[in-house]
């Protein structure tokens, strides 16, 4: 009798499934009736949504299975991506520094400097850079702080820091975005890829080998940084604003999850790229920091790294000062 009932129930269940109708009812004497719910969710491949009488229509989603996938991403995949990208880049830079050391200025310093970045250039760079540093630290705190910082400073101090960090992260997104736009306007014309870039890459950029390839104002490496910052920065800003104004741009929780995933992956990769940029702009190369520091670079540095650009600048300067009698012509 029990067997018969079981067979009947199973048959009915299979029939309902075959008809593709939502399985809400199932015989209960088989041990795990909540399988019906699992079946339904597998069939739907998405959230179980109904109707609610309260104004918040998002509440009509009864169960959203995608939450588990997002959790797996945030607690599993994301720390791995970030750890490998950022930790790997740091390890690479340390290794590079140990092998290659600080790249010296060829021929030592000259008495002459030429202007590489004017005031507006440098203002744009540092506004974006400072915003980015705070954004990166506060963002990485959300991703890794719980595991790395919380055990050190305790829950109260960590929550206070994270709360202030969230506010800073929200507000500094504006100067960062403005900086990205200004950079695009100021520097895009010098960052169009050209045939010279291929030669530069083939020569190892003068960093890996010791041979310098010709370069105009920006070499292939700098162009790569520029386009990473502009394109990835824009994507990070866009996804960030979607997260900042929840459910205004995207309507459903799935959209928020996807946006958060894109934001975190892109951000951690950009942090890794910028680490390399910071390295080569400071301890990695003699004479490089001045470009964004005082804005004036040593002539020997300019001729070694940006020979074509240095020629252009000097030619222009000579044209401008050429009218003046007795203008000094540097001896070659």
């Amino acid at each position, binding site marked *: 009798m029990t067997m018969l009932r079981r067979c009947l129930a199973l048959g009915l269940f299979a029939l309902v499934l075959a008809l593709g*109708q*939502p399985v*809400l*009812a*199932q*015989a*209960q*004497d088989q*041990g*795990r*009736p*909540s*399988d*019906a*719910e699992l079946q339904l969710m597998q069939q739907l491949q998405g959230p179980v949504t*109904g*109707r*609610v*009488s*309260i104004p*918040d229509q*998002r*509440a*009509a*989603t*009864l*169960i*959203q*299975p995608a*939450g*588990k996938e*997002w*959790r797996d991403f*945030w*607690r599993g995949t994301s720390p791995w991506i970030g750890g490998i990208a950022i930790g790997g880049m740091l390890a690479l830079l340390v290794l590079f520094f140990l092998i290659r050391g600080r790249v010296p200025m060829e021929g030592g310093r000259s008495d002459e400097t030429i202007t590489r970045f004017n005031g507006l250039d440098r203002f744009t760079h540092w506004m974006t850079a400072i915003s980015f540093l705070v954004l990166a630290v506060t963002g990485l*705190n*959300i*991703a890794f*702080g*719980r595991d790395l910082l*919380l055990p050190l400073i305790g*829950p*109260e101090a*960590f*929550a206070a820091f*994270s*709360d202030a960090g*969230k*506010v800073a992260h*929200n*507000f500094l997104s504006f100067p960062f975005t403005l900086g990205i736009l200004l950079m695009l306007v100021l520097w895009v014309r010098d960052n169009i890829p050209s045939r010279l870039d291929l030669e530069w890459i083939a020569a190892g950029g003068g960093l890996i080998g010791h041979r310098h390839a010709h370069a105009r104002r920006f070499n292939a490496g700098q162009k790569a940084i520029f386009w990473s910052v502009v394109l990835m920065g824009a994507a990070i800003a866009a996804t960030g604003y979607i*997260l*900042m*104004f*929840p*459910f*205004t741009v995207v309507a459903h*929780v799935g959209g*928020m999850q996807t946006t*958060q995933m894109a934001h975190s992956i892109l951000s951690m990769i950009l942090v890794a790229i910028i680490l390399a940029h910071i390295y080569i702009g400071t301890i990695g190369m003699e004479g490089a920091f001045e470009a964004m520091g005082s804005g004036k670079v040593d002539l020997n540095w300019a001729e070694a790294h940006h020979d074509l650009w240095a020629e252009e600048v000097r030619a222009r300067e000579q044209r401008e000062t050429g009218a003046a009698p007795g203008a000094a012509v540097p001896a070659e």
Partner: protein
Amino acid sequence: MARMKFLCDAERCIECNACVTACKNENEVPWGINRRRVVTLNDGEMGKERSISMACMHCTDAPCASVCPVECFYTTADAVVLHSKDLCIGCGYCFYACPFGAPQYPQLGNFGGRGKMDKCTFCAGGPEADNTPEEYASYGANRLAEGKLPLCAEMCSTKALLAGDGEIIAAIYKERVVTRGYGSGAWGWSTAYPDSQGV
């Protein structure tokens, strides 16, 4: 100690929303926040319409607690999942992870900024001392400390919504299912309590 759970018998729920109202009143939940809600599936389809009252399910291995960047969640001895509003930074991540849409946020602060998260506490208050005005102001009632069960389930006129020790409410539900000869699955149980046996 008991392992507290909610169970909504979808064969009994008549979508009266008394649980929603009881929760709002008992906990003085702010405007725009629904700790509990009633969702109707297959609305208007003859024989297939079911209503389910849903709130925080107080999950085993709670996803909200797993993703929280500041670790503001904790589980009580009764297996109720609670959180500290002093630690919460209102980032919204628990809402992304929660399968049941339990976390709610008041619209405070800058931009679309979320205030401190609010959710069903199983009428068990929060980290402050039991039944103090401070606890009530932040988290609502602490009926569990008074030996009472959540008001939503206590108020339920058809006894569709059950709250209490998981084994006891599972036994009640099983008895119902055996008596009437069918059931509709305990909504959310396989998601919230994957390690426990189904009902």
